[in-house]
Each structure stands twice: as C-alpha cells, then as structure tokens.
C-alpha cells in the first residue's frame, strides 16, 4: 500500500502552499500576540503574587497552579465549550470565526501568562538584595526601586526564558486547531480532507514548524550566551 511518497508530498505542498503558509502565518500571529499579552499579564501576576495582600496572592497562586497543572488541550476545551454553554459569543463584523479565534487566543494567553508569571517571579527573586538595599538606602520608595532597579535587572535575568517561552508557544498553537482556528495544524487537516493523504501533509507541517522554531531557539541560545557574558558582576 502506498503509505508515503515523496513526490506526492512535494505535489501537495506546491498545490496547497498558500494554505500551509497561511496556517504558519496564523501560528506566528497567535504566538506573537500571546507572548506580548502574557508578558504584561504574567508580570502583573508575578507582582500580585509577591504582594502583601493575602487574598490577591491566593487568587493568583490558584490561577497559576491550575493552568500549570492541567494540559493546554483540556484548558482549550473547557473554556471554549464552557463559553459556548453559557452562550458567551464574541464576534466582530469584519472577521469570520472571530469567536473561535478569541477563545483559543485567550486560553493561550492565560496558559502562557501562568508560566511567564513564574519566570518573572524567579527573575525578580534573582535580583541581588544588595541592589534593592542600595536603592532604598538612597531614599527611593519601594515603587521607584521596582521601576528603576528591580524590573530592569529582572528583565535581563528572564529574557532568555521569556524567549524560550515564545518559541514553545509557536508549537503549542497547534492545539487551538481543535476549536477551529485556521492555524498550521488546522490547515494540515484541511489538506488531508481534500487530498485523502494523511502522512504527507503532517510531515509538511512538521517541517514548517521545525523551520519556524529551530532557528529561533538557536537565536535564543545565542542571545543567552551574549547576555551571560555581559552580566558577570
């Protein structure tokens, strides 16, 4: 039986390349929006978790633990179908299927923010306490110390981990195909449905993911080495 044919694969790619590339583009857009939003939201959560307001701490800790201890796929399902069950639909006039896009993206952001919050928290924790004492001893308030000393130094600590998170989000976007967002994995399934071929579209998909992720992860490793070289105190 003809399970795999290289010729068929090249055929499929040339025939449906715009489809595949459109999906890849969507995956990148999702990742980019996710990383920007989760950096902001995750930082807020990290600060909240370190605050002195106990109920706030508990609430944020609960959120972080729930999202880190359940699979992304399950989160997507629960929230997407949960929203549907409660009849919550988010639509915009100019974009078809915005509802799926919205919920899929929201879950990606919530999931990623939980991880980013922990990254930021450890990055802040890694700032030398002497730096904070020096700022406070000059009369800087807690807030000013945070802004001028802690966050800039924490950012340097967390940048590599944050970029790695971005790289892994690209891969994780594949899961939101489940709720009908036409990213790369969804497009692969489209092509499978049209062409009655299974393995070739998936291999094409794998190759495209690899091309997106591999250079980025190498770039992150490079930047990490550069940062480490300049940080030594």
């Amino acid at each position, binding site marked *: 039986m003809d399970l795999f044919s290289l010729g068929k694969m090249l055929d499929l790619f040339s025939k449906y390349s715009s489809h595949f590339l459109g999906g890849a583009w969507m995956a990148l857009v999702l990742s980019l929006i996710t990383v920007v939003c989760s950096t902001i939201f995750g930082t807020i959560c990290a600060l909240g978790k370190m605050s002195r307001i106990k109920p706030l701490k508990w609430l944020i800790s609960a959120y972080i633990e729930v999202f880190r201890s359940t699979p992304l796929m399950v989160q997507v399902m629960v929230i997407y179908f949960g929203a549907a069950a409660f009849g919550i639909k988010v639509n915009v006039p100019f974009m078809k299927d915005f509802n799926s896009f919205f919920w899929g993206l929201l879950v990606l952001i919530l999931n990623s923010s939980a991880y980013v919050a922990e990254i930021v928290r450890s990055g802040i924790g890694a700032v030398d306490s002497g730096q904070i004492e020096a700022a*406070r001893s000059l*009369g800087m308030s807690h807030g000013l110390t945070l802004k001028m000393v802690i966050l800039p*130094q924490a950012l340097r600590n967390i940048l590599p981990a944050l970029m790695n998170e971005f790289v892994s989000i690209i891969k994780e976007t594949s899961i939101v195909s489940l709720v009908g967002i036409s990213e790369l994995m969804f497009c692969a399934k489209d092509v499978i449905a049209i062409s009655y071929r299974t393995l070739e579209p998936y291999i094409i998909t794998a190759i495209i993911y690899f091309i997106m992720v591999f250079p980025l992860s190498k770039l992150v490793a490079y930047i990490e080495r550069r940062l480490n070289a300049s940080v030594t105190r």
Partner: protein
Amino acid sequence: MSHVKTDEALLQVRGLKKHFGHLEVLRGIDIDIHKGEVVAVIGPSGSGKSTFIRCLNRLEEPTAGEVIFEGQQINTKSADIDKIRQKIGMVFQNFNLFSNMTIMQNITAAPINVKKIPKDQAEERALKLLDRVGLKDKAAEYPVRLSGGQRQRVAIARALAMDPDILLFDEPTSALDPEMVGEVLNVMKELAEDGMTMVVVTHEMGFAREVSDRVIFIDQGVIQEENEPKEFFANPKNPRLKDFLNKVL
C-alpha cells in the same frame, strides 16, 4: 585626629535591640553620635556590628529601643523612612552599584528621581563628585568595567550626591583586594577632614586609630568598650577587647 565637632547629637540610639527569631543579635545599645564626629565600630564577626549600623537607617527593623535622627525617632510607623534615608547615606561592603546603570546614572538616579533635581544640575554635581573621588573619566562606564576600589569610590560619590548629614559605612573595604584598600580609605579620610559625620564598621585598625574620633567595640550584642582611639588601642580595659586586639593587631 580631631574634627569639627559640636555638642548637638545628630543621632541618638537608646536601648537598641534586634532579635532574629530567638537569636538576640543586639542586646541594648546606647550611643550618641555628634555632628562632625567619626565613629569607628569594631568587633569580631557575628558580634552584631553590621546589624547595628543597618538599624541606623532601618535596613533592619529594630526589635526594641529608639533610633533618633535629628530629633526625630525613625523606627516608628509614622516616620517617613524614605525621606529620612535621603539624609543618611550608606556605603556597603559589596558596593551594590546598580548594575543596569552607568556610573553617571548610578550617581544621579536618586537626586533626579527622589529629590527632583533637574538632570543637568544633577549630572554637573555628579561630575564634581566623581572628580573628587578621582573617577571623572569613568562616568559613561558600567560598574562591571570598574575595579572593586573604583566601584567603592563611586558608591561613596553616589551616597554624597544626596547631600546626606551622616554617612554609614558597613565594612567598606572588606571585599577589596588589599592593594585597593588604600584608595578607598583615602577618600574616607578626606571626607572626615571635611567634617562629614561618619559611622564606620571596619576591620581596618589603622583607619580607626588615625581617622576616627571615637572607637567602639561591639561584642555579644552590646558595646563592651568605647574610647578615643589613642587610649582605646593603648589601654584596652575590657578583657574581650584585649583578646580581640591581640588577635587582629
């Protein structure tokens, strides 16, 4: 050496105690520090001398007792500690220059953002201070490019930029390579000569003897002995101090 000294007590410490859990680090310290006075604090490691100096600007919260600076008790809830700390400079053992800022930014950060001094004025002042500690050419560098001695001199300039009424030094030369100790002590000596009020926790007995007006010996959480330096080193009375001096001199 005798400095400009007045009777006005700039800093008064009354019955200062500090516990860390069950560990009593300070067990009742009383001292007056006068304007223009240079007080050297010596003692074995673990004696509480660092904790003592850190209580003076409330980097450590005293467990009991009073720290009164310029007539105002600083260890109360109502005291505006950020405001008070503007007048109490501190220099640390590990310099603690902000690693994300240039030398210039290190010095001007607090004057600009806390005291709201215009940037150009703050930078002009910073250059003068850098000149004073012999590091004018390093303004644009980052701390990582400086030697330990240079970093500590910048840290002193940074503290001076806030125009403090008193400077606290917490073992300022202990983290330095021996050949860099002198350059930092020289800057401190010049400050003392200019009439700056200073409390210096130090292991440099030469500095204590030559520059300070008074030496206090802290051990087991209390001041065991205090005296003017000549007498302090020539005729120590407390047996623990005798023992300590025998070991370090």
